[in-house]
């Protein structure tokens, strides 16, 4: 039974699964309510829910914010892998802290401050998941650019999403060819298992050698192609930026989204006064 379980987990964690999840996350959900909103409005919205929760210690207020961002996360239809990582991340930030507190002589009274901390972290990360995973990378980088974010950063976002599948495929290829030629040690005994683990890590590090050379060549091609199109000139000229950003448009839906969020926040502020 246990063997079966671990087998199915490892089956899921293959390169292909990873690649699919990342791609699905990036380009798979551009028909959702969240993806249809204007990136500038969403970033503004994120600034509120990404910052304000840190400053409040009121459990009701934090709970209200948490409920709202959970709903938007559902609306954005985020890929499962991302949500799993979110769960692990929240636990590893506060769950272990709670256990350690108990170990050092704390008691159940430490739950409340830790609950506050957990709610803060969960709200802030769900807000960022909504905005950064719910949006198309190109729209996201355009929105960031509108706010005067450095051109290099918004370029990095679009570049990363496009290059990642290629890079992963290449890394997998290099890794497989090393494995084909290599002779892994036995992994029956405990000593053998440790040796096997060291062998695996060594292969991964060795695989980065050809990968570095290949990527160096590719990044040169990329930059040269960018230069041909006048990338560095366009990055500093206002006119070019204007043309690029002309596709952004704020609609009624965006205002509606903001107004509903505003209504909800004022409602929980009102309620937090009574509890």
């Amino acid at each position, binding site marked *: 039974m246990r063997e079966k379980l671990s087998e199915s987990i490892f089956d899921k964690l293959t390169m292909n699964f990873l690649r699919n999840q990342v791609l699905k996350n990036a380009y798979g959900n551009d028909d959702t309510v969240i993806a249809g909103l204007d990136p500038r409005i969403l970033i503004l919205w994120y600034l509120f829910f990404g910052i304000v929760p*840190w400053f409040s*210690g009121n459990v009701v207020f934090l709970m209200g914010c948490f409920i709202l961002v959970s709903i938007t996360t559902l609306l954005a239809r985020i890929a499962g892998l991302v949500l799993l990582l979110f769960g692990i991340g929240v636990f*590893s930030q506060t769950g272990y802290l709670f256990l350690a507190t108990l170990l050092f002589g704390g008691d159940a009274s430490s739950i409340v401050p830790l609950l506050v901390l957990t709610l803060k972290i969960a709200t802030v990360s769900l807000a960022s998941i909504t905005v950064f995973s719910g949006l198309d990378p190109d729209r996201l980088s355009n929105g960031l650019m509108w706010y005067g974010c450095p051109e290099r950063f918004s370029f990095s976002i679009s570049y990363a999403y496009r290059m990642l599948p290629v890079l992963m495929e290449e890394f997998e290829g290099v890794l497989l060819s090393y494995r084909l030629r290599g002779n892994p040690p036995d992994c029956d005994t405990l000593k053998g298992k440790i040796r096997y683990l060291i062998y695996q890590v060594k292969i991964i590090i060795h695989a980065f050698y050809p990968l*570095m050379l290949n990527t160096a060549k590719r990044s040169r091609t990329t930059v040269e192609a960018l230069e041909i199109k006048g990338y560095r000139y366009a990055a500093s000229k206002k006119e070019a930026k204007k043309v690029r950003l002309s596709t952004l448009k704020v609609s*009624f839906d965006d205002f509606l989204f903001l107004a509903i969020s505003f209504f909800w926040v004022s409602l929980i502020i009102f309620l937090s*006064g009574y509890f």
Partner: protein
Amino acid sequence: MEMKKQQMITQSQKLMIFVLTMALYGLATLFTELIPKLQIGIVEFSVEYFLFIPLTLGILFDPISAALGAATGELVFSEIMLGQFGGLGELEKFITVTIGVYIAGRLVANPKNRKMVGIAAMTGVVVQQAMGMMVDILKVQFAVEDFESVAGLPQSVYATEGFAFLNDVLFSGILFCLLPTLFLVPKLYGKIEPLLGMQPRTEKTAIGRINVKVIIGSLAAFGVAIVSEFMAESGMELIDWEAGWAESKSAIAIAMMAAGALAVIILLVIRKNHNRKEA
């Protein structure tokens, strides 16, 4: 002929180094995000960082481009793409990674000198991890308001953070930074530079040792990381819901609610009319 003294780097070559480091380190951090962590008690054995990639590239190429590329790569690939973007905390990570890689890159004048490469790799990791630990402790102190009054919490935070630091330096530092860097730098030296159209770095063309300016710059950047956390603390009093205007709070909240509800209704009506006109 002042230019000849330094490694000649054009702006587009800097961009190439940036793109190269960003793509490789981003890919690596994406894996570390997914590799399961082995936890024995509170001591964590994890493949914390593939920091050897930016360290190697920072030693071979322009350190500042490699450092910025690594920090951006981590931010974009493993934080934004996986939706783990945490606002304030990311600024600190960005700055500490940049400083760590930059200092390591500046330390090495001649990549053929293996002893220096090893020292630089370890320095980079220790600097980065130590700064990360300091900011982590501060962060918990700010986020939990009655930090001191919770029994056992301060000690547990110091203990877990201290453990994490030692464990990261000794385990990931040696296994995943020192050894791979020592292996990769001599192997790549002289081979990877021509691919970007550059001369390999030698004693003569290095951009000079670490001087006071670098240290002051690093300290200032680290100050920014801490200040952003301090701003969070002072901000607490500004937007505290239990503040002096508590008596009239309900009234203000009701007014805000009414305004919000009104805005929603008006927008719905406008949209309906607008759609009808278009149809």
